[in-house]
């Protein structure tokens, strides 16, 4: 279960992007790679949130949440039609 991956929505504090990065998506990718070499971003967002979605294990999600510039790592929710 620990190793199984789930989708997370990662909220980033875009204004805290380190000056060494040219573009915020590079910073997002670097933050992601620091906790998981294999994870890829499903989507990046800039209108609705500043951040991205990706698949992580619970452990990786916890590690990512403690990274600088990370506001929240929220598990994906499944919605239903009404």
């Amino acid at each position, binding site marked *: 279960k620990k190793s199984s991956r*789930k*989708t997370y*929505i990662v*909220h980033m*504090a*875009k*204004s805290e992007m380190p000056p060494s990065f040219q573009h915020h998506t590079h910073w997002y990718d670097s933050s992601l790679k620091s906790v998981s070499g294999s994870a890829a971003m*499903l*989507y990046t*967002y*800039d*209108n*609705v*949130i*500043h951040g991205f*979605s990706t*698949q992580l294990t619970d452990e990786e999600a916890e590690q990512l949440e403690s990274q600088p510039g990370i*506001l*929240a790592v*929220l598990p*994906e*929710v*499944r*919605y*239903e*039609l*009404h």
Partner: protein
Amino acid sequence: TTRTPEFLGLSQAAALFPESESASEVVIGVLDTGVWPESKSFADTGLGPIPSSWKGACESGTNFTSANCNKKLIGARYFAKGYEAALGAIDETKESRSPRDDDGHGTHTASTAAGSVVEGASLFGYAQGTARGMATRARVAVYKVCWIGGCFSSDILAAMEKAIDDNVNVLSMSLGGGMSDYYRDSVAIGSFAAMEKGILVSCSAGNAGPAPYSLSNVAPWITTVGAGTLDRDFPAFVSLGNGKNFSGVSLYRGSPLPGKMLPFVYAGNASNATNGNLCMMDTLIPEKVAGKIVLCDRGMNVRVQKGAVVKAAGGIGMVLSNTAANGEELVADAHLLPATAVGQKSGDAIRDYLFSNPNPTVTILFEGTKVGIEPSPVVAAFSSRGPNSITSEILKPDMIAPGVNILAGWSGAVGPTGLATDTRRVDFNIISGTSMSCPHVSGLAGLLKAAHPDWSPAAIRSALMTTAYTEYKNKQKMQDVATGKPSTPFDHGAGHVDPVSALNPGLVYDLTAEDYLGFLCALNYTEFQIRSLARRNFSCDASKRYRVTDLNYPSFAVNFDSVMGGSNVVKHTRTLTNVGSPGTYKVSVSPETPGVKISVEPQTLSFSQANEKKSYTVTFSGSSQPTGTNVFARLEWSDGKYTVSSPIAISWT
């Protein structure tokens, strides 16, 4: 849709709504199961060039190319990365990896909001008429985020991201999930961003009624829509061997029953399963139901599947009985065999007849479509109810709109029941839910946006709320089918939409993104939570006292602590903006509310300029009442020409 334009007064007031350029400049984005582009509801006859502001696209995929779009359907995108990450690659033999709607729900909602005029629409002759969306000249952009396995929030966010880039004016979302706080709810998060861009977001309130605290999509920057009935019905009576008749509804069209009384059996007595009364798959004993009409109870499996189960077991017809959960609410279905749905009381009486008669017999008399049904609208039993479980000081739902037995466009990939065994194909289908009432309001918002391009999403919602009605023309109060009594603001919010009045509301309660940020401060959101939701560095002003009751909402929800003695005093501040002609408005509050004194200062507001703003304060002074007490009232400002009405819900918790 058929009938709702007349029911809402749109047909009679067509001249009031601009058919000019502005009406066709409005783009309504629909996040749902996609679209069936061949539906006549997306014909673009008479529409001019695509608005220059439009930045969207028509994406290709399984069974869908950009050629499927036109000047009505101007955008079509699909989002499946989250869905496939969660459930694996889409099986393209089962669903189209494209904007194409394999389900029907998305075509239904999109055509309800903005479908073109289609003469001679019906479902097997039921609900016959001229079908049209609420905003017939608005453009449609669909964003497919819902798949067989559900609608995943990473896809929903991606679709909202794109819809904002594409420049939609209204977003319609007939979906919901959980009841988490706003900063954890992707629909609330994406809607905040959309609201900031001037996009009105209209969402379904949920179908978890009539239980209280059952709402979805309650963020104050979202327009939350409950469901009411129309003045149309599809009667199909149950006629028992003892001569008694019971009302039912049905959309069955097919081989008639034999013209005689037929043997009748209760499913619970024709099954070895403990829940055999529910007519679930493989639970009926063919020898016991063959050639008979079967009484099934609602619950667990979908209603139309019960009919298919009876048919598969050799039954020739079905009477489907409501249980306490749905009471007397009658939702019609296009069953695969002669079938009718009856209310709980009728179901109980029919069951008693079955148990007390050695040779029970029955037949079903189908009467087609009836209009002019009263009382109507009534609040649908399934429509989710307040109070607001996340922020009790914000009254939700905001309003109700038609959501029961709504005819609109359908997919060509699936039958009207949605069952795999249903090989029928239809252009229009009749279904029910707050999924259907939401796009009504989305389309009406589009009409208002066309008439008042400078109005904010909050102003549009305010106009729809302060002109909504809660009484019938005979002054009787609107009813709740779940109780048979007058509905309350926890059921109908501000009331049932009245778009013609909403066009000229006189005054509106406007709101900006900063107002909503202040609301988040009043909720004691952390800086991180506000930054997550609002994508900006925003610090609540430590020297300022933020109060939820200061949010300039067009309705009032007041909570008294039943423990505290008489000294319960709550103040709400509101600001009205003049969008009508100059006038002096006087306030009234009615009816008298036991246990609470309501006073308003000042008592009159005079407006001489357009967009002039005036504020007032309402003071609620409550005496102690038992926990769980609710009282309701309405606060109205009137200058003799306009009436600006707000519901008040007061609770002792």
